[in-house]
Every structure is written in structure tokens, then in C-alpha cells.
């Protein structure tokens, strides 16, 4: 019975307050691409990070399909997500949210990019990274005064995504309890 308890653990301790803080952080990083914030409160089974777990609890519910990519797709993780969010587990092509490492999430062309009537019917990818740093790619566009920098896993692929605007995917990057984001509206240049 003790083993069974773990899938039920790791939720928010004070849901309304924790979720509101997490939502604020998620919204801030998405509105200010390149900014890195702390995001914690939830604990998912390994290997999913605290930041990714907190994002999932904040953004997912029974009406958002979630794709667990590669190493994040474990029975424990499935049970944890189901108990805490009720979100259905789906394939990449149906996903509203996907979580995993960059290589596990590939290929990007599998995910939904929205339609011209409903650009919002697209996937949001939660990319688990080794570390987040304000170095590497140069970002500009809405929400960025002049430019900002962020270490991105694959600049050409993300440039191709931003070319699809107003369609395309949005990205969160997570590492430990850190989060950053890259919306489809951001222009990306090398270094």
C-alpha cells in the first residue's frame, strides 16, 4: 500500500495559492521571452523536473491532452498526472501539452500548430533541459526590450517554428525549479 501512495503525493500543498503563483510565473516568462524564473510547488516522479511538474499541475485538466515523451513516459508518471490533473494521455499529434527532453520530443512536425481560424489549437511543449542560461540565441520581438538571450536546444528548428506565426507551437524550457519560455512570436538569431 505504501508504494501506491507515491503516485498521489507531490501535489500542491495549497492549490489556489500555489497554482496562482505558478500561473503568474508561467505567464511572466511567456510574456518576456528570455527571462528565467523559479517555479516550484509540485513534485512529479523521476525524471520529470519540479518546474515541469508545477507547469503540468497549473495548466492541465481533463480537457487537455498530454503527451509524455520518451523517458518521462513511465507508469508512475502516468498515474501521477492522472490523479493530479485528470488529463488524458494522448499521442504527440493530439497533444495540447507535451513534456520531455528535446530529443525525446522530436520530430517537431508531429505536433499541432493550430489553424488560421483557431491558432490557439496548437501544442505547448515543455522541454526539459540540463540548465537554463541567458546566453546563446538572441531573442527579439513582443515582450522583449531590445534583445534578450537564452540557451536554446536547436536554433534552426525554433526559427522554422517562428516562421509559421501566427501558427506554430509555444515552448517552455525547464530545468530543476527554473523555467523560461519561447512563444511563437519571438524572432531568433544566432548568438
Amino acid at each position, binding site marked *: *500500500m505504501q508504494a*501506491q*501512495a507515491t503516485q*498521489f*503525493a507531490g501535489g500542491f500543498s495549497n492549490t489556489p495559492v500555489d497554482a496562482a503563483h505558478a500561473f503568474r510565473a508561467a505567464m511572466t516568462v511567456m510574456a518576456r521571452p528570455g527571462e528565467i524564473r523559479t517555479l516550484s510547488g509540485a513534485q512529479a516522479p523521476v525524471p520529470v523536473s519540479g518546474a515541469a511538474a508545477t507547469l503540468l499541475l497549473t495548466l492541465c485538466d481533463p480537457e487537455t491532452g498530454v503527451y509524455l515523451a520518451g523517458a518521462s513516459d513511465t507508469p508512475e508518471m502516468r498515474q501521477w498526472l492522472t490523479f493530479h490533473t485528470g488529463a488524458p494521455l494522448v499521442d504527440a499529434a493530439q497533444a495540447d501539452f507535451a513534456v520531455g527532453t528535446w530529443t525525446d520530443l522530436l520530430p517537431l512536425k508531429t505536433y499541432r500548430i493550430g489553424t488560421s481560424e483557431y491558432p490557439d489549437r496548437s501544442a505547448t511543449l515543455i522541454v526539459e533541459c540540463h540548465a537554463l542560461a541567458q546566453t546563446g540565441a538572441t531573442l527579439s520581438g513582443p515582450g522583449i526590450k531590445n534583445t534578450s538571450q537564452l540557451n536554446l536546444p536547436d536554433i534552426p528548428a525554433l526559427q522554422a517554428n517562428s516562421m509559421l506565426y501566427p501558427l506554430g507551437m509555444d515552448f517552455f524550457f525547464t530545468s530543476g525549479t527554473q523555467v523560461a519560455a519561447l512563444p511563437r512570436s519571438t524572432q531568433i538569431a544566432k548568438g
Partner: protein
Amino acid sequence: MANEIDTGNSARKAWMSLIASAPEEVMMALWGAMDNRPSFDWLRVPEVGGVMVRGRMGGTGAPFNVGEMTVTRCSLVLGDGTVGHGYIQGRSKPKAEAAALIDALMQTEAAALVQRDVLKPLADQVAQTKSNRAAKAAATKVEFFTMVRGED
């Protein structure tokens, strides 16, 4: 083995279903009279939410959404690791907590006691209420008798 699990599930389904719609006052009175309440930790504190209720076209056809109902749920774990879930109709957090504790205790050695002191009397009372209503309905059943059968 599979059968044992099925029986376990159907027993658990039965007590959870009974508690979900049982009148709160009756259930809380029975539950309140029980001693030795176990200590527990929350896995999910009681939360009030909605469930979309579906019907079927023509009673038997394709589903459609009728409207929502309020439901309160919570989950907890006893000291020995037993997990209890509470799902009840309405917005009572105390009732949801009691429901989850009863669900947990029913998986422990206390099951017989909970069954005897809470679930059995509760089920009897619910059955009595249903039977009373059915009896009143039965009294309004029309007994037809033919007045005239004419053939001109």
C-alpha cells in the same frame, strides 16, 4: 486473482457509491458516533468542483451534455499507507473527508466495524427512503376498468 480484484472493486464501488449520495446529516451522525478515528495526511485536500452530466438521445442513443452537478472530492493516506478517496455529491468538505476516511478504513482491519456501525445502517436508511417513495408512486398508479364496450 483477477476475480478477487473484481470483487474487491465491486465492493469498493458499492460503498463509495452509497456514501456519494447518502444524506449528509444521517451519514455524519453515524460516522460521528464511531470511536478511534485514525490520523491521516492529505494527498488532495477537499475541493469542490463540477462534473458534466451526460444523457443519451432517446434514452438509449448517442450521448449529449445535460448540465453539471457539484461534486466534492479529496484523497488521504492513513499512517499505515492505506489510501482513501472521497467523491461525494454536493459541496460538503466535512462529508468528503469522512467519505475518504471510510474508504480507507474499509481497506483495513477496521472494515467490519465501519460496515456494521456506518455503512449498513446508512444503506438501510437509504433503502427505506427509496421504498417509501416507490410506495407513494405505486399508490398513484391508475387501475383502468372498462365502463362500456360499445359496438354500434
